[in-house]
């Protein structure tokens, strides 16, 4: 697994490549935490375009960061999950509480934020 971070305005983008499971859950969590501590973004965008596999260990890390951001008044957005990853996001219930977006900036999950405006504002 690899993560490429970049700041775009007040959004911290994390472009993730590879598989998110127990093997790299600790690294995944630590890298996100360190970059959140440092950048203090309003929005964390997890770009899952390059994620080919996720299981409960990866989902757990995402939920933990969602909770942190929520507590700090921020937002977490899931961007472009592949179909099998999106299916697990939805089965786990995370799709209900988080915003999931496709490449056109359209919301595809059931989360209660609206489209790009959630990112841009």
């Amino acid at each position: 697994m690899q993560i490429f971070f970049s700041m775009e305005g007040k959004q911290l983008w994390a472009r993730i490549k590879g598989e998110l499971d127990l093997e790299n859950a600790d690294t995944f969590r630590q890298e996100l935490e360190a970059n959140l501590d440092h950048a203090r973004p309003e929005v964390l965008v997890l770009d899952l375009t390059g994620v080919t596999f996720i299981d409960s260990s990866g989902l757990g890390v995402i939920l933990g960061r969602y909770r942190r951001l929520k507590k700090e008044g921020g937002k977490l957005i899931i961007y472009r999950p592949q179909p099998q990853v999106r299916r697990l996001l939805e089965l786990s219930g995370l799709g209900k509480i988080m915003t999931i977006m496709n490449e056109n900036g359209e919301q595809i999950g059931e989360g209660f934020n609206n489209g790009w405006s959630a990112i841009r504002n």
Partner: protein
Amino acid sequence: MGGQQSGIKNKMILEFLSVPENVGLARVAVAAFAAQVDMKLNELEEIKVAVSEAVSNSIIHGYGGDPNGMVRVEVERNEEGLVITVEDKGKGIEDIALAMQPDYSSSPERMGLGFAFMQSFMDHLDVTSEVNQGTRVRMFKNIEKVVEK
């Protein structure tokens, strides 16, 4: 031959140390075994998740992160489908019914998704466990019959 009589078409046994690196190894090996017969891509993804969850549970809960345990994965293909067994000799589960409830986790950091995923992605799931002896998870995945001409 024995294999023929018992209806077993193929079988694989994998044993490995309870280290996180082996979660990926196990799911890829089982998926490759499963792919020997025509399987939908989606079904292979489901098998990967189920194996990943069971093996992760053995490592995380069964052995509590101790890397010196052994996890055993057995896969068998018969006429009907795949039988996948994941076994550890870890601490066991006190209350299996409780453990298998969706959303139940003994760890505050986790969501309790593992058994729920195994249940929804496999056609049958059966868990046996004994405290301080270990846990065995057996999963069955139907192979849809390809109609032969």
